[in-house]
């Protein structure tokens, strides 16, 4: 039996063009609706980057709406028009067509173009989110089972509430004390996992005052469902009031038991050796984010993202010496004192000199 070549019908079937027109109209209406509606409906857009993420979201939504319309409406239409009529013999066959290279080219090429556009658009927004220039405030958020704590520059200890001033570009470093938590402010569309031993960074600029939830978005244990707290976004004046109530802004200078150390006589090369013996079990000499038990100390004196030490003091050599001398005991971690570490005052001076030499690099 020779291969029977069946010539395909060329007409597209009854009502193809009206249906195509319908798809075009419905798509246009949906694109209009998507682009003009605040998406997601009912969730406040409380500042950057919510605006740019929502723009991306609407863009994605418009594309998705068009593609979904094409697939759904054509599929239903084909299903109705090409259904086998009642009473037709069971061996009725359809149009014997295998390929349509032009059609296939276009339905490969158009999605490819869309993917390229979408990638470029996403990368652009992504790049804006990475930009840290002009960040004024740096806050740290620490997750634990089951709650959040916050640390502000020049504020001693940890706070249980988070306040952010309006229109202030803010960097939030998130980490965890025990297991992985999530740090999510839906109104800002921003989220980062709080991973123990790792510091993740997000950047926001709140623009709408109000009280919003901070929600844990990674499963963290039995009370995961109720692990949440509030973030208060308020005017800069109100924030300043709150901030000074927390003891912020007063600074605490040097002093304390570390004051007697002659830090200007430290030798960096001796300090380097000491650091390897005494410190490097817990601290790397990389950037702050290269956290082991404690943070990386490579830029301790000139890290614009970390304008304070663990006790809230400014990162001056005197204050660093004080921490090495006294140790630190707090919610974020524990560092043994110089007595425990068997460090003399000259040792501390050497270490500080070493750290200072790192920061100059």
């Amino acid at each position, binding site marked *: 039996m020779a291969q029977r070549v069946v010539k395909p019908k060329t007409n597209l079937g009854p009502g193809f063009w009206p249906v195509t027109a319908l798809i075009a109209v419905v798509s246009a209406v949906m694109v209009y609706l998507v682009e003009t509606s605040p998406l997601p409906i009912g969730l406040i857009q409380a500042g950057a980057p919510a605006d740019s993420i929502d723009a991306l979201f609407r863009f994605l939504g418009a594309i998705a709406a068009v593609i979904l319309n094409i697939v759904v409406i054509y599929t239903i239409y084909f299903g109705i028009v090409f259904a086998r009529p009642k009473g037709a013999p069971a061996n009725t066959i359809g149009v014997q067509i295998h390929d349509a290279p032009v059609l296939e080219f276009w339905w490969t090429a158009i999605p490819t173009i869309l993917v390229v556009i979408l990638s470029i658009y996403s990368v652009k927004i992504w790049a804006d989110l990475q930009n840290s220039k002009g960040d004024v405030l740096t806050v740290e958020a620490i997750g634990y089972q089951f709650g959040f704590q916050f640390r502000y520059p020049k504020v001693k200890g940890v706070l249980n509430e988070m306040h952010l001033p309006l229109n202030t570009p803010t960097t939030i470093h998130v980490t965890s004390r025990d297991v992985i938590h999530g740090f999510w402010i839906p109104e800002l569309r921003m989220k980062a996992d709080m991973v123990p*031993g790792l510091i993740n960074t997000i950047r926001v600029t709140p623009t709408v005052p109000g009280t919003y939830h901070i929600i844990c978005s990674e499963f963290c244990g039995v009370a995961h469902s109720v692990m949440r707290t509030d973030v208060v976004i308020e005017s800069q004046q109100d924030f300043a009031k709150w901030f000074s109530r927390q003891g912020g802004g007063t600074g605490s200078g040097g002093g304390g038991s570390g004051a007697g150390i002659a830090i200007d006589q430290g030798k960096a090369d001796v300090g380097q050796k000491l650091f390897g013996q005494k410190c490097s079990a817990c601290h790397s000499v*990389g950037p702050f984010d*290269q956290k082991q038990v404690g943070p990386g100390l490579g830029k301790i004196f000139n890290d614009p993202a970390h304008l304070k030490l663990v006790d809230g003091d400014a990162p001056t050599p005197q204050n660093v010496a004080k921490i090495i001398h006294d140790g630190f005991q707090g919610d974020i971690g524990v560092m043994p004192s110089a007595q425990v570490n068997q460090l003399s005052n000259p040792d501390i001076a050497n270490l500080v000199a070493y750290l200072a030499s790192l920061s100059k690099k």
Partner: protein
Amino acid sequence: MAVSVAVHGHGPDDHGGHDDDIIYQETRDMRLMGFVLFLVSDVVLFSSYIFAYIYLRNSIQPTWPPIVDGHQLPRLDTAFAAFNSVVLFGSGVTMHFALESWKHANKPRFNTFMWLTIFLGLGFLGGQGYEYAHAQIGGWSGNIFGASFFTLTGMHGIHVFLGVCFLFALWIQTQRGVYTEHRFFGLTAGTLYWHFVDVIWVVLFFLFYLW
């Protein structure tokens, strides 16, 4: 009728070979392919742990070997490992020539090489035991260096041990006349496996001792 001949499978292109031979050949090809795919899958197993080792080494620790309780762990004994590696690589070569001898129907030479391979394999395992006893890196569960080292080399050691058992079983089978000069898929598989184990060690040797 050419068509039904093809369908029945006794075509004119049989070159007069016995059915048995052709059936054996095709079964062997399938087994060989399956065995190679198994090795590929085993490579992924090792690769995963190697990835873990590199990941831990690079992204967590500023120094390597890591510092534990204020002391930097010592490096592993490269000189001994080099010696032990040669033992294992040597066994790979002897295994290769054992198979070649079998292909050339030289049974005494096959026996010699086979036993040499097994002894070298056992020697490597002994060396590894010595190495384990002398590695001052805090044991399996002490720190991430020990964890990576003992997990990876231990897994390799298990592979070597199974390989030795495999080779021994193959040798017994050769003595019982299971294989012929033309039908020896088991030996092929054993050789491939043994080479594979050697090559994994090349990577581990580099990662743990030379890097």
